[in-house]
């Protein structure tokens, strides 16, 4: 019997409040014969039912004795007896002491695999809790196994808590239900790490006592034992480090994040030892007398079958031991990356960090750790800075609004302060939501980005009003300064970022058909990136204006200072972003023209059914943009007008368009090759731009004879394909 805790808020409808009479006290009368006879009087296909119960309800009933739907059936299909931990201990089929080293190693490795399988989205009942030992570690007498079982429970408990708190998961990411299992909550975290440390030290003594000595001849039996002690020691230490790192993440101080990073590195250092010793662990036992599937000692896959909800049974395939170390290695890398976030201090930098981290499609645990590290207890950024302050800093960095400058008279003006404070407060929630959105898995993220545009449209509205109010205030006090569109520019920038991310992620998620590429890329290059460029340059001018004003104010104080400022003028803060946007815009323009040209040459497969409408598809793709005011959405008719090639005389032919596309890719290549410190993203785009320059030239030169349709290869860059013609 699994030990259930008394209060479990996870349990959903688990037979609580079942009327007593349902069980066994009622006086049951057998009516089998009469019932069956009566049924024979019904017509073929006739259903006899209450008027409130119909086919719709009937359809959702689970069919018993169908293995796809009846999770309880499988217990009857196996030849072995499915025992609980306590039952197995009593009847001697499981040992809690005197376990051999290979047995311990095998059990621990299988447990690790179960843990990983759980983290990858399966239920606890079908993974970690198929290990009987974790049902009740108090009954375990072997100290290593006992400490290990408690360690695993604690790891699960903390992981679960983190994932729940961060709230960046959906049902496909993670199963949080604990089915009433006790997660070692009668022992403190510290006690468990202490137990693991004690075992570790004892094991270290064993390792030392079996090591080879100089001049002695090596006994192979002792050598094997030595290797096995090392194997066990490494596993216990790994568990302790993993647990301690997770515990560090639960602390509120940012210093504990650095501690976690160090612990994770130490854990990574143990991985080679883990990998090379997997072979020492016992394997799954094939009990040929009973003819069932092989079972691992100490594990019973069906022990929790009756706890599973009555949905159709989901069989959790436990990870293979050979893949265990590889997974841990990647998980540790992700967690170490997460720890880096505390080194970024400005909001835009943090947003970029979250976006980049998300791009590698990280696991739910690492995503959750990132969220909870950023907003500790959802109040302050890294536990220290209020969101409002970060927003003000972001505004200063991006657009230098006079109202936030200490050199501006508005800084001490009560009314101005009220305006800006209220605006910044209203910005907090949408930006926190935006950061949370970037913590979801890629598919859900796209959907949520579409929805948050509504909130940002409201912010945009408010920004314009506050700008206008501040501007009129400023005109009265400092006529040479202006406060037009400062806040508005900043919000617009974020709006555009979201819209661009929304459209680009459609390529990553393979949502668009080939015949849609042209309008998606058009919207990006001719519209969104164009707006983004002008927004960035407006922000830049605003910064320059503010800097010039400060220089003038400081004139006469020290000529050295002004000289320094002129030197620093070289790399403007937004220049990299402007450069990258230019590159992206050219890539999109190149793709857009390529697609139009391919279409002219009848190389794009289009849908050919009677009720087809490109307008409907287009409107659907850009539907989330309808709530945005600036930039105003481009409707289909407008798009058709704006992109109509007939307005040129003579209208371009496909060869002209291929050449134009080639030039765009060329331009992108030039821009990117001049980027001072190229990051991996720059190189990825170049891997696409370079071949496309060539392909477009070929197509322009009349490579049209082939009837084979072009292929789009997104393997180098998930947003921009290399066009391949065979």
């Amino acid at each position: 019997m699994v030990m259930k805790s008394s209060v479990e808020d996870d349990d959903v409808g688990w037979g609580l409040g079942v009327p007593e009479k349902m069980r066994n006290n009622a006086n049951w009368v057998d009516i089998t014969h009469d019932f069956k006879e009566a049924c024979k009087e019904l017509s073929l296909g006739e259903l006899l039912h209450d008027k409130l119960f119909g086919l719709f309800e009937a359809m959702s009933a689970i069919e018993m004795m169908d293995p796809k739907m009846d999770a309880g059936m499988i217990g009857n299909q196996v030849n072995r007896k499915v025992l609980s931990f306590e039952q197995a201990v009593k009847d001697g089929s499981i040992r809690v002491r005197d376990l051999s080293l290979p047995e311990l190693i095998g059990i621990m490795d299988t447990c690790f695999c179960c843990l990983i399988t759980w983290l990858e989205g399966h239920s606890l009942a079908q993974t970690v809790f198929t290990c009987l030992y974790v049902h009740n570690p108090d009954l375990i007498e072997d100290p290593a196994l006992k400490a290990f079982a408690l360690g695993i429970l604690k790891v699960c408990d903390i992981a679960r808590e983190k994932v729940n708190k961060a709230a960046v998961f959906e049902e496909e990411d993670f199963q949080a239900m604990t089915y009433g299992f006790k997660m070692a909550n009668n022992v403190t975290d510290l006690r468990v790490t202490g137990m693991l440390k004690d075992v570790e030290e004892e094991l270290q003594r064993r390792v030392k006592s079996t090591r080879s000595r100089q001049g002695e001849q090596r006994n192979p039996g002792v050598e094997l034992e030595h290797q096995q002690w090392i194997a066990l020691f490494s596993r216990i230490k790994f568990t302790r480090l993993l647990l301690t790192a997770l515990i560090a993440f639960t602390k509120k101080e940012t210093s504990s994040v650095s501690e976690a990073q160090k612990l994770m590195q130490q854990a990574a250092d143990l991985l080679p030892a883990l990998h090379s010793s997997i072979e020492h662990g016992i394997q799954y036992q094939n009990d040929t007398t009973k003819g069932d599937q092989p079972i691992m000692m100490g594990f019973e896959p069906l022990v929790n079958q009756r706890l599973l909800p009555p949905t159709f049974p989901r069989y959790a395939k436990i990870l293979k031991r050979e893949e265990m170390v590889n997974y841990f290695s990647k998980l540790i890398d992700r967690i170490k990356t997460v720890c880096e976030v505390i080194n970024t201090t400005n909001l835009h930098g943090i947003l970029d960090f979250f976006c980049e981290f998300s791009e590698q499609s990280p696991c739910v645990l690492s995503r959750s750790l990132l969220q909870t590290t950023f907003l500790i207890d959802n109040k302050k950024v890294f536990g220290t800075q209020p969101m409002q302050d970060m927003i003000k800093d972001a505004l200063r960095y991006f657009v230098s609004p006079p109202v936030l400058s200490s050199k501006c008279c508005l800084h001490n003006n009560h009314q101005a302060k009220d305006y800006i404070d209220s605006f910044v407060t209203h910005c907090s929630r949408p930006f926190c939501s935006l950061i949370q959105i970037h913590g979801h898995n890629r598919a859900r993220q796209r959907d949520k980005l579409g929805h948050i545009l509504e909130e940002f449209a409201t912010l945009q509205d408010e920004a314009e009003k506050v700008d206008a109010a501040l501007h009129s205030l400023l005109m009265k006090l400092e006529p040479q300064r202006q406060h037009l569109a400062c806040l508005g520019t900043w919000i617009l920038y974020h709006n555009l970022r979201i819209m661009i991310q929304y459209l680009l992620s459609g390529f990553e998620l393979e949502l668009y058909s080939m015949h849609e590429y042209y309008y998606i890329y058009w919207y990006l290059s001719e519209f969104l990136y164009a707006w983004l460029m002008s927004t960035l340059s407006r922000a830049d001018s605003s910064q320059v204006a503010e800097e010039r004003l400060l220089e003038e104010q400081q004139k006469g104080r020290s000529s050295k200072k002004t000289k320094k400022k002129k030197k620093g003028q070289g790399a403007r803060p937004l220049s990299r972003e402007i450069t990258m946007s230019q590159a992206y815009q050219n890539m999109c323009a190149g793709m857009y023209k390529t697609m139009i040209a391919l279409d002219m040459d009848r190389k794009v497969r289009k849908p050919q059914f009677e009720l087809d409408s490109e307008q409907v598809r287009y409107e659907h793709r850009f539907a989330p943009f309808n709530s945005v005011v600036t930039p105003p959405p481009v409707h289909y008719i407008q798009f058709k007008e704006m992109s109509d090639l007939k307005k040129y005389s003579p209208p371009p032919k496909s060869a002209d368009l291929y050449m134009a596309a080639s030039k765009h890719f060329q331009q992108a290549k030039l821009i990117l090759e001049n980027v001072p410190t190229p990051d991996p993203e720059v190189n990825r785009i170049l891997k696409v731009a370079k071949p496309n320059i060539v392909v477009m030239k070929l197509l322009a030169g009349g490579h049209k004879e082939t009837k084979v349709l072009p292929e789009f290869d997104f393997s180098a860059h998930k947003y921009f394909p290399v066009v391949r013609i065979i």
Partner: protein
Amino acid sequence: QNMLINTDGPSGRGELSSYSSRARQKLESLLNKNMRIRMTDGRTLVGLFLCTDRDCNVILGSAQEFLKSSDSFSQGEPRVLGLAMIPGHHVVSIEVESDSLVGTQGFGSSH
């Protein structure tokens, strides 16, 4: 084949033989009553009788599954299933509470 949903009461089917209509009445009188069905693999389901058809496929609501046990059902926690359908050919026995049979004709006399 059309699915004839019997939404009217027995009064709507006067043209059928009185034996058929009595059979339907008997079955209808059991609707929404507690029912206990033992299946071919030894498991027992207890739930509210909601629906049946000619092949004796039965749908139970708020169904609970009890595993086979040598003595009574007091052993073992039931597994809550919700809405469950037992195919007719897997039904070994059907039981209802004696209270459910009060006032109806035909069913239940000791067999």
